[in-house]
C-alpha cells in the first residue's frame, strides 16, 4: 500500500513536482558531468602534458639541471677547444652503466626514454648544437614535433639526421640535403632525413643517433643525460622519480618541475573550480526544491490532517511525503546522470578533442547527492508533522 499511495501522490501532484524534478535533473546533469570530468581530467590532462615532452631527467650528480632538458648538459667540450676532453668530462655519465641500472627497473609509467649527448659542433662555419640520442624515441618524447620529410626510424641508422627548422633555415638545409659536421678534427657526413619544427630550442639543434654524436665528439660510451616521459598524474611522476633515485643512487634523478608542478597546480585549480560549482549547483537545486515543497506542504496540509485523523502516525505520514521527495531525487539523479554523462562526453570532445571515459561510480554518487539535496529541500514538509487534524477540519 505504501508504494501504491506513493505512486498516486506522485501522479496527483505531477504538475507541481515537475518543477522540482526539472531542477533535480538539471542539477544532476551538470554535477555528474563535472564529477565525470573531474575523475577523468587527471589522466586527460596528464596526456596533454605528456605532449609537452620529457618530464623526468637522469643526470650526473653535480649537474644543476635547468627546466629545459636541452639546456642542461651540453658536454663541456666544443668544437673550438680542439681537444678531446673525454677523460676530462666528469659531468658526463657512462652510457652502459646508466642504461644497465635503468634496465633493472621495470616501470609501466615510463612511456619513452632516451639517452642524450649534447655537443657544440661546427657545420660549415657555423657553430650548432648537436644532440645525439635514440631517434626512434624522439617522437615519443616530443609528440608535438612537426616534421617535414622522414623520421629516422632506427637508432642504428648512422647516416641520417634530423635538423631543427632554425638550423635548416640558417644552413639552407632540406630533406635530402647533405650535411657535414666537424668536431676536433673529426668529421661526420650525414643526410638530412627531415626538418623538425618544434616551436622551441629544438629548432636550433641537429638530432642524430647517439653513436654518431659519440664518434664525432670522441666521447664514446658517454652520455650527458637520460630523458624520460612518464605517464600518469603528478603523483605518479613523483613516485617514478623516487623509484629511479633508489635504483640509480649515483645519479641525480629529478622531475622537470615546471611541467609537473604546472600539471599539479592546474589540476588543483580545476578541482577547486569544479568543487565550487558542484556545491553551488547543489545549493541552487536544494533552493528550487525548497520553494516547490513549501508550496506543496501548504497544499498537503488537509491531506496530512486527514491521514492523522485516520490514525496515521507522524512518522508514517511524514515518511510518505519524504519518500515521495526521495523518489523524486532518485528519478532526477538517474535521468540527470545519463544526461550528465552525455554532456561530459561532449565537453571532453570539445575541450580535449578526445572522448571522456564514463566513470560508473558517478551514478550512485550523483543519485545519492540528489536524494540528499531533495530531502534537504523538503525541509518545509517538516511542518506537516505539526498539523492538527481538528484545526484543519475547522478550516483554520
Amino acid at each position, binding site marked *: *500500500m*505504501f508504494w501504491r*499511495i506513493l505512486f*498516486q501522490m506522485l501522479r496527483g501532484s505531477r504538475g507541481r513536482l515537475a518543477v522540482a524534478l526539472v531542477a533535480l535533473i538539471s542539477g544532476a546533469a551538470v554535477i555528474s558531468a563535472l564529477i565525470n570530468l573531474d575523475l577523468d581530467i587527471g589522466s586527460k590532462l596528464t596526456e596533454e602534458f605528456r605532449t609537452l615532452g620529457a618530464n623526468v631527467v637522469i643526470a650526473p650528480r653535480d649537474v644543476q639541471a635547468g627546466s629545459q632538458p636541452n639546456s642542461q648538459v651540453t658536454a663541456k667540450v666544443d668544437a673550438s677547444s680542439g681537444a678531446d676532453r673525454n677523460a676530462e668530462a666528469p659531468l658526463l655519465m657512462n652510457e652502459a652503466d646508466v642504461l644497465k641500472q635503468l634496465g633493472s627497473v621495470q616501470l609501466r609509467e615510463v612511456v619513452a626514454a632516451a639517452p642524450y649527448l649534447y655537443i657544440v659542433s661546427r657545420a660549415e662555419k657555423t657553430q650548432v648544437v648537436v644532440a645525439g640520442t635514440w631517434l626512434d624515441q624522439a617522437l615519443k618524447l616530443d609528440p608535438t614535433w612537426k616534421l617535414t620529410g622522414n623520421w629516422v626510424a632506427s637508432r642504428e641508422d648512422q647516416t641520417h639526421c634530423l635538423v631543427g627548422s632554425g638550423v635548416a633555415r640558417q644552413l639552407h638545409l632540406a630533406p635530402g640535403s647533405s650535411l657535414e659536421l666537424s668536431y676536433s678534427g673529426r668529421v661526420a657526413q650525414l643526410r638530412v632525413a627531415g626538418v623538425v619544427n618544434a616551436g622551441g630550442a629544438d629548432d636550433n639543434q641537429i638530432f642524430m643517433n647517439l653513436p654518431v654524436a659519440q664518434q664525432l665528439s670522441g666521447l664514446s660510451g658517454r652520455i650527458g643525460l637520460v630523458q624520460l616521459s612518464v605517464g600518469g598524474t603528478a603523483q605518479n611522476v613523483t613516485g617514478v622519480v623516487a623509484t629511479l633515485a633508489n635504483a640509480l643512487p649515483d645519479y641525480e634523478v629529478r622531475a622537470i618541475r615546471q611541467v609537473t608542478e604546472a600539471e599539479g597546480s592546474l589540476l588543483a585549480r580545476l578541482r577547486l573550480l569544479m568543487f565550487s560549482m558542484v556545491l553551488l549547483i547543489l545549493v541552487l537545486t536544494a533552493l528550487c526544491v525548497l520553494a516547490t515543497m513549501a508550496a506543496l506542504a501548504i497544499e498537503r496540509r*488537509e*491531506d496530512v490532517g486527514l*491521514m492523522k*485523523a*485516520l490514525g496515521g502516525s507522524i512518522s508514517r505520514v511524514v515518511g510518505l511525503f519524504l519518500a515521495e521527495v526521495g523518489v523524486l531525487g532518485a528519478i532526477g539523479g538517474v535521468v540527470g546522470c545519463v544526461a550528465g554523462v552525455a554532456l561530459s562526453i561532449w565537453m571532453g570532445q570539445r575541450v580535449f578533442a578526445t572522448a571522456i571515459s564514463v566513470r560508473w561510480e558517478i551514478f550512485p554518487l550523483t543519485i545519492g547527492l540528489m536524494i540528499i539535496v531533495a530531502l534537504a529541500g523538503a525541509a518545509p514538509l517538516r511542518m506537516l508533522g505539526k498539523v492538527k487534524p481538528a484545526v484543519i*477540519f475547522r478550516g483554520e
Partner: protein
Amino acid sequence: MATVVQVEGLRKQYGNVCALDGVSFGVHEGEWIAFMGPSGSGKTTLINILGGLDTPTAGQAIVDGTDVARLDEAGLTRFRAEKIGFVFQQFHLVPYLTALENVMLAQYFHSTTDENEARLALERVGLGDRLKHLPSRLSGGEQQRVAVARALINHPKLVLADEPTGNLDEANAETVIRLLRELHEEGHTILMVTHDPEIGQLADRRIDLAHGRVVGISDYSAKGAVRFDR
C-alpha cells in the same frame, strides 16, 4: 448494556472562548446519539474530543475504557486508528487516491491492507462499480458513502459522524441515513452531529447543546419520546 462513552464535566477553552462548559453524559454500546444545537454550541468540539482529534481543557472523556484526556500524541493516534470511524460533513477523501484506495488508507494506518475487504465495504455502500474512481469523479453522495465505508473498515468501537448529510441533496442524504440506520441495527455505536431535527429523531437519544452545555436530552428509543429538559 455496557457504557461505551462516559463524559464527566468536560470543558474546552479556546483562549477566552469556552466551547464546552462542564458537559456530562453517557452512551451505551449500540446506541445512536444525535447531538443538536445552534452553531457554536460545541457539538463539533465534543465530537472532536471524543474522537481524539482534540484534547479537553478539563474533565473526563472515557471511550471504551480509555480516558482520551490522558493520552499523548502517539496514544491519540493509535486510539483514532483502532477505536474511531469518522464521517465528516466535507467528506475529506484524499483527492489523488481512488475510492478503493481511500478505504484501504484507513486499513494501512490501522494495521494491514486487505483489498478484498475494502472492495466488499464499498460494494456494501453501493459503490461496487466506482472502486477505481477518484473523488473528483464521484458525486457528493457517493463520496460520503466512500467515507462511510472507510469509517467502518476497521470495525471501530465508535462511529463519529459530523453533519454527515450537511452537504448532500435530499436523495443522497436519504441514502446515507439509510446506511447509518443499517449500521445501528447491526449494533454499531453512532454519535452524530446534525442540524436536522428529522434526522435527529432517528437516533435513540438526542442531546441538545447550547453555549457549550447540555440543555436537554430526548430519548426516542422507547415508543413515545420522552424529553428531559434541563
